């Protein structure tokens, strides 16, 4: 039996076009053995959730540098719930102050990484999340 491949959606919501981080992370995760879907810029929460469902990803990572995190994360969570896809994890990275992070964690958002995070930390985080799944 083949091992389950972890599938990750890396998305860039909103209007901000700074995709350096998203692309570096997408590539780094590929090099760590994950299957990564990258959807490009200017994604709405609806597009992100639709993609996540069709691709049956295990986890969504959003890169937000524009300060719109308090709008976008809750909206993606809401849509995941609405579509019965709460088993899909949501994490993110970008410029997110501690105070907002706390609020988002309480809503059920997974880890939010700061600028300057090593890709290996993200890899470790994802691997820990899916420990059981991988050893299936």
């Amino acid at each position: 039996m083949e091992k389950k491949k972890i599938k990750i959606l890396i998305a860039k919501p909103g209007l901000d076009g700074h995709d350096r981080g998203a692309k570096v992370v997408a590539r780094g995760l590929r090099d760590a053995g994950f299957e990564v879907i990258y959807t490009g810029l200017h994604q709405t929460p609806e597009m992100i959730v639709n993609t996540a469902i069709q691709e049956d990803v295990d986890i969504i990572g959003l890169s937000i540098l524009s300060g719109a995190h308090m709008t976008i994360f809750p909206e993606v969570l809401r849509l995941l719930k609405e579509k019965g896809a709460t088993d899909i994890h949501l994490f993110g990275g970008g410029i997110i102050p501690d105070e907002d992070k706390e609020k988002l964690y309480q809503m059920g958002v997974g880890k939010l990484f700061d600028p300057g995070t090593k890709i290996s930390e993200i890899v470790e985080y994802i691997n820990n999340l899916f420990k059981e799944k991988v050893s299936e």
Partner: protein
Amino acid sequence: MSNKDWEELEEAYKKWEEMVKDLPECTLPSFSTISNIPVKKVYTPLDIKNFDYLRDLGFPGEYPFTRGIRHTMYRGRLWTMRQFSGFGTAEDTNKRFKFLLSHGETGLSVAFDYPTLLGRDSDDPMARGEVGVCGVAISSLRDMEILFDGIPLDTVSTSMTINGPAAVIWAFYLLTGEKQGVPFYKLRGTIQNDILKEYIAQKSYIFPPEPSLRIIVDIMEFASKEVPKWNTISISGYHIREAGSTAVQELAFTLMDGFTYVEEGIKRGLDVDTFAPRLSFFFNAHLDFFEEIAKFRAARRIWAREMKNRYGAKKKESLLLRFHTQTAGCSLTAQQPENNIIRTAYEALAAVLGGTQSLHTNSMDEAWALPTEKAVLIALRTQQILAYEIGVTNVIDPLGGSYYVEYLTNKLEEEAYRYFEKIEKMGGMVAAIKAGFPQREIAEAAYRYQKEIEEKKRIIVGVNEFVLENEKIEIPLLKIDPEVERRQIERLHKLRRERDNIVCERKLKELKMAARSNENIMYPILECARVYCTLGEIINALKEVFGEYKEEAFF
């Protein structure tokens, strides 16, 4: 030096090299610039053997301008201290402008929010959560009037970081001046208006490259007739660098973008000397001190040479590479943010030693949010200390003649020409962009840099070394009130209710007709702006004619 002298020197150098070759080196696993140019222990005349003072450097204010574009440089006039700012509504930013002016700032620089940068009104569905967050929201002439309320536009020069919708935002500004009683020809400032780097790096494009270039040439033409003191394009390497490029790539792609604009202008039939003097540049000042200085010097020399030889510019002003510098936002760390003050100071020093005409120093908290007043003040003070306390402004190009700096200047120039050649083979910059060439080169460099940090081949203090466990961030952060979005949308709706909508529709129709013809598009845009058509309405009308650009992602 005679042949004999060279031989002697060479021998002496070899001897020394032999002597030190086995001595241990400790600080880094490998020695290279941030652009990965390997560096030796020491540089000597041997590394610049063909050096010719008059040909390669000349004097300040004289061809090829390697040492600076002015005869007296900072002894005659300091650089303009220009802090980029903008957030919330026009009222909020207006207040910040007045604060900066009262503390000795000499030029304004407007940051717009994402919806504005993409030509969308604040009530556009895609704008949700982004109104006034990363800059100020400007949806119409009304907002612009408020932004500069109480700031006489004939007394300041204003730089506006705007690209895709530059023509429209500029029209708002010109009309704001007009309403204050300042005629177009007295207005001074810069619009960034560099669309090529948007496709390459920053991704705030709207239309496909061809119509975008047409609008840019329209702007150049309009300015040369009506707004002669305005800098029509700020050809920007800054964002290319922020997207992860090396210094060489920043230099090469930016100059190549510049050449493309010049060629477009010439193709239109404009005399190069009428528009070239109004082209300016915008570079990044990153952490690798000497490489950055060399980059600025090489840029000046290449530009002057190509403008003169390739494009046949005759006026001295056309040969001058004038540039604004911003310290590297991507070098700021979220960890131990106070350290960013020091990073920024060194980067600013490199910009000054490189001969910048104006400078923005980043605030320490910008890896986290828009800067607070306190952080901005420290950033401005950093420049003032540089200018007045440490003596670097006394002598022009004080590093000129340094073996290492001259070697690096030559090296960067050489590498840039290698890129020019490749891009020309592809059919020019637009073709190269469409094929994803610069995008791929940058993505590759960004990934390599990240890996170097992860593998500790580069040390970033507080990030991969000298880390504080359980660090608590203790700088106060500026928060944007979510009310901003609501207030801004309200104002926009009020505007739409109160203006003459029939006239607006007619003007928009005329604009579309002009867009389909080859008439200069600035005039109908001004007409639309004057009757308070909104940014989004004007851009959407143009989208109908020009279409929208969709990018592929290049890794």
